[in-house]
């Protein structure tokens, strides 16, 4: 009886240990993976292009302002990752 109880407790401890290891590794690795994937992601080829040119001088009269946000600024977004939740037993608020 006592042995059974102790084994159940031991299994719960092992489960908790596995969840902790899983969470620590996932958070560190996940942040790195998301960082590199977002940094090297393809950008919109039309970002920052010139919509209207001055034919005489060659200067740009109107830039595509919407496109600039789809260029490197999207790759360099600071809030690129949300920390992984532990999800050990119940979800965090």
């Amino acid at each position, binding site marked *: 009886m006592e042995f059974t109880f102790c084994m159940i407790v*031991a299994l719960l401890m092992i489960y908790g240990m596995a969840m902790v290891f899983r969470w620590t590794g996932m958070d560190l690795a996940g942040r790195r993976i998301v960082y590199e994937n977002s940094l090297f992601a393809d950008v919109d080829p039309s970002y920052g292009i010139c919509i209207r040119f001055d034919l005489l001088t060659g200067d740009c009269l109107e830039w595509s302002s919407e496109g600039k946000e789809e260029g490197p*600024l999207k790759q360099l977004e600071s809030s690129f990752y949300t*920390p992984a939740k532990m999800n050990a037993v119940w979800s965090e608020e």
Partner: protein
Amino acid sequence: MKIDQIKFKEKAQTASELAIFGSILIFVLGMIVNQTVGFSYSQNHYLRAMRLAMKMSYLYSEGLVEGSGDGVASRNNATVLLIEDRLTVDSGKYGAVDRAPQVINVSASHSREFFKPFENNDEEDAAMMDIFVNGKHFPLTTGRFKRVCLAETKEKCRYNDDRTPDGWDEWSPNSWDSQCADVSRATFAYFLGAWYCAYDSTPYTIGCKNLYSVVVNHPNSEDWCDGTESNPCVNNLGKDERFDLDRDFDRSPTGTADSDVPEDPSDPQVDAIRQQFSWQWFRVKGINLLETSKNPDDRCRPIVTLGLGEEGMIFDSGLKIDAKNIMVDVDGDLKEEMIVKNSDNDSNAVMNNVTVWDSQDGDMDLTIGDQEVDAQGTEKVHPGFTQDLAMYTRVKSPDIEEPGSGTYLRIEQGKVCKASGDKQCYRSVQKNDHVDIVERVLQLSNNTNRFCKVIIDEEKKEVSLDNDPLPAKVDGLTNPVEVCCDSELCEPGGVSDPGEGGTCFDEENIDKTCMFVGTWYDDPVTHEQKFFPPTIFIRSRIKDLHGRMWVTDTSEDPYVEFK
């Protein structure tokens, strides 16, 4: 009887081993979580800082920031110092309450403006340094343009507002060489149907400024000498003058060199010091050889002949001809400045004034070395964050008549607080120490009038706030400084006690980022009035959302009052 006792002990052993194992396991898991969260904080901080540096370089190079036009070179190599005060990993009674600073310095480059030339008055293209402290952005300059007069006397300066090194009287007595060069003037002459340059048969001597540049102390340097028989220093500066690091020969009326790098041929160890020293001084004459007849674009200009071993400089405003000797010390601070404009030279090509880029004249002088002193021997003020760090917490007033009022108390750890003088102590033993303000002190090198506008009177040795001293924006960004204070008052914000003046530590200003614009002080070594540069007290108001996991309203619970 004995058999029963043995069985009882076996059952107890299993439970006790499980208890010990379990507690050790939980302890180890806690340590793992603690360490890993710290690693996560550091990794997150590092990656965010890298992205921030790359973003800064991209935004300014592409011209996406107000005031950056179609792209500027100020962040070609963006340097970002990111400081954030994060909660530590703790599992105390109220959760994590302590904060630890996360500090990292990174740099990144966007190559769009790499080849943009740096010309006169291109302030927007000058290299900048960015500091982020808990979300507050401080763009700092690393230098400034200034115009320096190179005439013989102040009266001969072309412009009255030309800078001179700390007052005209302190200009080095040996800086003007009245026997600088021989000149043969040229005039156009028409002879046999053609125009010719007719030169004076007898040249005459002119004077010019002595400037100094740094050359490598190595035999491969063409301007090097060491005073030995094979390389005697007979031209330009002598061997002792070249190693007179503070240029006493230039400052003393007798022109005597005080060699700061010793030489002793009889002692190999001492002698090796000078041989292995990295640099030496080299004299450059204040004559722009581009305007003499020895340049390719000859237009009947005067022939200027310098002494043996002497060199002038070549500066072309159009940047078409390779420059020479344009990195010289023009203001006597023993450091080189870069010449970016030369104008108003006389007819003999003698330079009257130059515009230079001075790396020591920006918000942050990054050229100051450890234990560096100025020409008078006083240790220079090092820019950057000082070791002072303070945390303040706001305590609400128990006065019912004034709800919401309170005061800020400084949190100190370590020894038990002892009240003394005006210092009062307050110890909290029941509530969570709620940190509201983190204060850091950022020491600047100069007041560039970007964060606070001041008026500095060098004759009266006074510094005061200008009218409307707080600009709304700095380089297109919201001014991070919220209050400007001199030694008498602060603007804006008013004064808590009008009779005594305002400071950065008044009740109205204690929670605001405040800049003290500097003051004159009496130097204890030289007994001269010197200017102490401005200081920014960065106050980070951090909203502490942690400290509790569950909040239970116990206000209506019955309680027992023990007597």
